[in-house]
């Protein structure tokens, strides 16, 4: 009955209430934050989410892209010898490269950390150079150094009676070469992250450790590493994702050869999808990185969260 009684003014009141609630919503900090991040959300949706679902769609089509075949492309890949070779190589490539990047980055970060503040900026800048040059460009430089017939490395080694080494012609040397270039390119990222992390370790902890009689190794093991654990985990995860998805270094240096022995997921996906005009199979190969990286991400992030909660 009350509703009926106020019915004539209902539209006006509802309109006023809507305007008020809209004004209130706009005043809220969260709304403003949402609106400010909206362009980025749209960008991510257009450039990441749409292509991701589109590649999923492509991976479920037949070779001529006219028929939906479900997961047939994936099951087909399981039967291919080259696919398992690529899985093995992608793992060798990514894991070896990340371990060496982390190790060398950690050591170099310590060296740089111990340089007096005055000269440190210069060293930091120089050590970052490999990371800031576009990898396609720097890999071309490496290609000339490794050139099958005119390698500058072999020329130098010849003075010591060594070589010639088939840098890109022999399977094992070719794997070594692509990993080496990846480590050279990615190490500065680890170095700069670890350096930032080292600078945030309170000096008091080292002083306390020194009073307790800890030697250099014990200070690293019981102070530095526990304090850097989260940054090591995040950096490793990030680098693992980027290294697994690497394309340019292998493509330029060996193009997957010799006899497929350096192909990784991205280069083989390109070979199948673009060079062999089998886009669905190429998309399927590239999607195989997702579950592998997802598992790695779950483990590493779970560990980071756990320690976050503990602290």
């Amino acid at each position, binding site marked *: 009955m009350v509703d009926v009684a106020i019915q004539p003014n209902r539209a006006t009141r509802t309109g006023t209430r809507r305007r008020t609630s809209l004004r209130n919503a706009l005043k809220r900090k969260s709304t403003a934050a949402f609106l400010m991040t909206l362009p980025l959300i749209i960008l991510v949706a257009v450039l990441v989410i749409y292509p991701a679902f589109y590649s999923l769609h492509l991976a479920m089509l037949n070779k001529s892209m006219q028929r939906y075949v479900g997961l047939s492309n994936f099951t087909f890949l399981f039967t*291919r010898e080259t696919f398992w070779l690529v899985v093995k190589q992608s793992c060798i490539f990514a894991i070896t490269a990340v371990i060496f990047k982390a190790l060398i980055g950690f050591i170099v970060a310590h060296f740089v950390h111990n340089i007096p503040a005055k000269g440190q900026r210069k060293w930091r800048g120089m050590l970052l150079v490999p990371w800031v040059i576009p990898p396609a460009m720097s890999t071309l430089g490496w290609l000339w150094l490794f050139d099958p017939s005119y390698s500058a490395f072999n020329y130098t080694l010849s003075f010591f009676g060594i070589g010639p080494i088939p840098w890109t012609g022999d399977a094992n040397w070719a794997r070594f070469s692509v990993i080496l270039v990846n480590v050279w390119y990615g190490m500065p990222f680890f170095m700069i992250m670890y350096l930032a992390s080292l600078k945030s370790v309170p000096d008091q902890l080292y002083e306390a450790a020194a009073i307790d009689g800890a030697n250099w190794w014990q200070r690293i093991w019981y102070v530095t590493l526990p304090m850097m654990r989260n940054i090591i985990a995040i950096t490793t995860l990030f680098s693992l994702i980027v290294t697994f998805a690497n394309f340019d270094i292998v493509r330029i240096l060996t193009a997957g050869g010799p006899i497929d022995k350096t192909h990784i997921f991205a280069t083989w996906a390109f070979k199948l999808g*673009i060079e062999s005009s089998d886009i669905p199979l190429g998309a399927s190969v590239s999607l195989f990185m997702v579950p592998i990286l997802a598992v790695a991400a779950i483990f590493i992030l779970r560990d980071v969260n756990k320690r976050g909660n503990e602290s």
Partner: protein
Amino acid sequence: MSKTLSRRQFVAATAAGSAVLISSPYIRTAYAAGKLTMGFWDHWVPGANNTCTALVNEWAEKEKVEVSIDYITSQGNKNLLTIAAEAQAKSGHDILAMPTWWPHAYADNIEPVNDIMEPLIKLNGDVNNTVKYLGKQGDKWLAVPATVGSQIKGPCSRIDLMKKLANIDVQAMYPAGSEPKADEWTNENFLKAAEACHKGGFPFGIGLGETTDSVDTAGAFFQSFGADLVDAKGNVTVKTDAVRQALDFYKRLMAFLPPDVTAWDDASNNKWLVSGRGALIMNPPSAWAVAKRDAPQIAEQCWTHGMPKGPKGRFAPFLPFLWTIWSFSKNKAAAKSLLVHLSQPDSVAKLVQASGGYDLPSFANLTKLKTWAEEGPPKGTLFSYPDPYHLQTLSIAASPAPPKIAQQIYAQATITKMCVRHFQGEPMEKTLSWAESECEGFMRS
């Protein structure tokens, strides 16, 4: 004051308007026949694109068409990415230059060109079987063979080194201006020459990587033994004596090649010749052209000629570019008209001239243009390049397998991988089993 339009007034006004439009004189504007966009292969020869542009503009002026040309490089496979993207988007250029296998790969999106190919064949002579294999699907012509970018990858030998080390006079064998005397130029003698040049310190530079130069050469040699991995009907025919013979031939040949050939790409053989380290490479005249600029003393000793003969004939690797029209093109009539213009004998001669003899027309009557006879030094070095006496079978590696299967064999370099595996010590039968399994995997549709 409001004024309403009655139904009668509306009908009368529309009729009057239509009458005025119909009776008005047709004013032909500068671009009355619409627009046409094209993506052509970006030529590596300086100035070659300009000749192509001039020919297109000449046609556009006459036909009143607004044209826009993009020269798309094949460096980094940019042209392949463009083809894939346009086919996906169903939008892009009206005409696109596609390499070898791509017209078949995108046949469903391509406008048939029977109506222009048949008159062009009448005008310029028949096209070779490789063009038919790559450019035709059943009775449907998918493409017009492009002069620009089409090439034969035959031997380019050093006159002096072949004479000195292998006792072969390549100029006498393939004389400029007259028919070759190459009966003795067989696979076995090729092998002997390779051995002699290897011993002499100037090995033949034949790649065994996964790029086209390596695959093309291996493909031609395999075909000269009659060794097909998959036959025309799509049956896997890897485990045959012909394939075994070809593999054995390559194993013997590889012993006389530089040790790093498994890592060679398409630039490696060019560098091998230009640096003066080798007596023979398999390439179109691009290496010679670079030598002419950078190492004239080497260029003066280069002679391009035919392939050696195997048990099943003399096969030369031929890689055509093909001009295609997308089925979603908005100006197909203009596109066809332009392709006819670019395939006229005069236009072809200009394109060949602009490329310094590199570009090859696929039509039988256009293989004796004066450019090939006159280019030098040494004069006549390119005379035999277009196979003027039609003594070779122009072929592409992995044919005669159905093109969609052959493309997989070709792109994944199955043939060169077989050679490398066997050379590196894998038993013949194991290599054949591997190749058979690969070919079976290529059958998916």
